[in-house]
């Protein structure tokens, strides 16, 4: 069998970007949460906020470090596997991605160090300022990345000269038609991710009766936050969908599983899309509901997938089902947040073990929802790399062979597998250690500032403390 470099490159990019995305989507939300904790501490001088901030900053340090490590690969991957695409779009993507790097460095250079290592060494107000700046910086980073992605979805502000995109308006290109929707949707997703992780970890501690006072506070504030954010996200998602209908109707048709352009389109709850025969094999749906949602009237005409030729259609089943996973999890998150409101009376959210366990389980849900959402939007624009302008096949590196692509795909899976295993293993140790003083802090192990992970002092090996204790005896 001939190895197809196109499929392998797409798989590789999907793998690397999915692996990478889970870290920033968490750190962006967490950075804001840490800034809020610092703000509360600054205002109330209640030590609980400070302890929470310290603990979550450790988690932030580890996850941020993993995000940086996994992100380095991406800045080279455009060139290695998609050189025609890089060359054609470099006039826009080059500066925009560089601005992201430049922002990230500026941030790291100036404020991350202060946030991670400045505790007790700089005035409290300066520490708070650093926390706010880091949180803002993570948003500026995502601003550039999402602008680049949105431009590929809804290109604007350019003219094509000899097969290369030249920018005629930076404003139009950066703030392209789908940008604000994607930015809002993603920003909200980061908050939800941060919220559900903090809620889940706090619930885990409450189940074990550890640091009860602090974790009650953390859980309570998270549930209030999630109560408002989950419906807000549904609303933003709805607007984003309408934006997609306007600019990428085929993607939306695939999300709805709607093959023919027609009125009274049902909202499908279940279906088995059959791409070969251009139809669904089995459908359960709410009559006319999709027309009502998308066109605000039952006889609103919604465009179908078959508007474009089969070779220009996205993989419908993948898009259709990923969309349902995302929306389903969205409703589940909304339900859990709402349940929290009802259980709040008499403090049952802190005692009901079933609810606390459910919260622990929900930690995974925002991550899965975010990845599903990205699969919807990325697979949904196939076969277009730059929507309507450049196909995946035309963006591929011409000299790339299937063997080369397979080699690096396996390689990245192996490398990331190791990094992920160690990272998650280490994170669980940091969580298990909790708000106790770390053995490394106790034993005065060397501290090498300026790097994110050094802010977490938890040892990696079980026998570390024994060794240090033995050495100092």
């Amino acid at each position, binding site marked *: 069998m001939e190895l197809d470099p196109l499929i392998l490159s797409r798989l590789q990019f999907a793998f690397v970007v999915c692996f990478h995305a889970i870290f920033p989507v968490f750190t962006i939300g967490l950075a804001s949460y840490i800034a809020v904790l610092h703000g509360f501490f600054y205002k109330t001088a209640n030590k609980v906020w400070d302890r929470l901030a310290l603990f979550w900053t450790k988690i932030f340090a580890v996850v941020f470090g993993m995000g940086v490590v996994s992100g*380095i690969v991406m800045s080279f991957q455009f060139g290695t596997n998609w050189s025609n695409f*890089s060359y054609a779009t470099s006039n826009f*993507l080059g500066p925009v991605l*560089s601005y992201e*790097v430049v922002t990230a460095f500026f941030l790291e250079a100036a404020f991350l160090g202060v946030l991670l290592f400045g505790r007790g060494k700089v005035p409290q107000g300066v520490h708070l300022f650093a926390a706010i700046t880091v949180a803002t910086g993570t948003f500026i980073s995502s601003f550039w990345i999402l602008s680049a992605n949105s431009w590929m979805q809804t290109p604007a502000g350019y003219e094509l000269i000899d097969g290369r995109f030249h920018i005629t308006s930076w404003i139009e290109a950066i703030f392209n038609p789908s940008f604000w929707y994607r930015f809002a949707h993603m920003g909200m997703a980061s908050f939800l991710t941060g919220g559900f992780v903090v809620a889940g970890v706090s619930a885990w501690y409450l189940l074990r009766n550890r640091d009860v006072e602090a974790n009650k506070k953390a859980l309570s504030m998270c549930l209030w936050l999630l109560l408002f954010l989950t419906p807000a996200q549904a609303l933003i998602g709805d607007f984003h969908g309408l934006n997609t209908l306007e600019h990428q109707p085929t993607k939306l048709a695939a999300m709805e599983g709607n093959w023919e352009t027609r009125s009274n389109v049902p909202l499908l709850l279940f279906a088995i899309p059959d791409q070969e025969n251009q139809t669904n094999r089995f459908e359960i749906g709410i009559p006319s509901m999709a027309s009502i949602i998308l066109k605000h009237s039952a006889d609103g005409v919604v465009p179908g997938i078959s508007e474009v030729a089969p070779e220009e259609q996205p993989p419908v089943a993948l898009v259709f089902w990923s969309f349902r996973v995302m929306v389903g999890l969205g409703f589940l998150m909304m339900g859990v947040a709402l349940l929290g409101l009802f259980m709040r009376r008499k403090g049952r959210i802190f005692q009901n073990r079933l609810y606390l366990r459910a919260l622990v389980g929900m930690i995974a849900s925002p991550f899965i929802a975010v990845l599903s959402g990205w699969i919807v939007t990325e697979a949904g624009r196939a076969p277009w790399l730059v929507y309507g302008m450049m196909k995946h096949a035309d963006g591929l590196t*011409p*000299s790339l062979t299937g063997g080369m692509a397979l080699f690096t795909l396996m390689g990245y899976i192996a490398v990331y597998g190791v990094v992920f295993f160690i990272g998650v293993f280490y994170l669980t140790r940091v969580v298990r250690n909790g708000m106790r003083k770390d053995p490394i802090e106790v034993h005065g192990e060397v501290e090498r*500032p300026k790097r994110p992970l050094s802010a977490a002092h938890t040892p990696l090996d079980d026998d570390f403390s024994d*060794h240090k204790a033995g050495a100092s005896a």
Partner: protein
Amino acid sequence: MINIDLAIVWAAIIGFGIIMYVIMDGFDLGLGILYPFAPDEESRDVMMNSVAPVWDGNETWLVLGGAGLLGAFPLVYSVFLPALYIGVFLMLSGLIFRGISFEFRFKSYRNRHWWNRAFFLGSAIAAFAQGAVVGAYIQGFAVEDFRYVGDALDWLTPFTVLTGLGLMAGYALLGSTWLIMKSEGHVQQWAYTIAPRLLLAVLIVFAMVSLWTPLVSPEVRGRWLDQFSTIWILPTLALLCSAIVYRSVKRQDEGLPFVMTLGIFVFTYLGLIASKWPIIVPPNYTIWDASSAPESQLFLLLGVLVVVPIVLTYTAWTYWVFRGKIKVGEGYH
């Protein structure tokens, strides 16, 4: 007109970024290469501690360079990366593994030897890959119609293996002279012993590459041999620096060996640029052919002009804060 000006400005920025990366990440990669040869575990602690506060700042130059190339000279980005496909993968894997060893070596005891190995292998592979890139740049690339058309392993030739090993030796020399400056006692004595041997290795490769380059690249031969020109001053200065490194190591100077090793790197680098200028994608494309649109170069320039001075200030400040010797059993507190 503005196009020409911007291309040169950007060539200067990228050129500056590359040499900053090479000399700054060079010495910490070099320490990684020397890791298995260190006399004892204490020395390894000292070696890692001496670069721990600065190494990730050093690597930021690599990422900035990668992104900057896409923005300013996309042809370089879209030819070099496909041509060096396997090498780029190896380099990135190497950098990732040594990055996590920095983090976890001090957090573990039982498994420390694994982190030592990861640190060595990651550093050695990354250094070799970077050296091979230099060799591949001298060789040139099979490019047609602004696209790389060669095979996956065209870059891997005896010549690039030599340049790869050469850069490993060069980085190791930088690492050893850095260690002379930053350590004391038996660690420093060990560094004094190995530095002259590494210098010898560097000079041998330097001579071989100098003799070999005119054979792999006729253009370079023309530039150096057709008329006797001022560029000969660059290798002369590099050799002069080597001589001073040797003398100062023998005299047990502490700072001079490192500074003069930097000199070897800078003058060799300038010599390489002088051999190729203004060709940036050999054998045929100049910096102007490789440029992105002038409005894109200008747009990015605005940001870079603001940020690079800040990064430089911050970098200088970090080195200042962490100046001085590293003692055995002591880190930065």
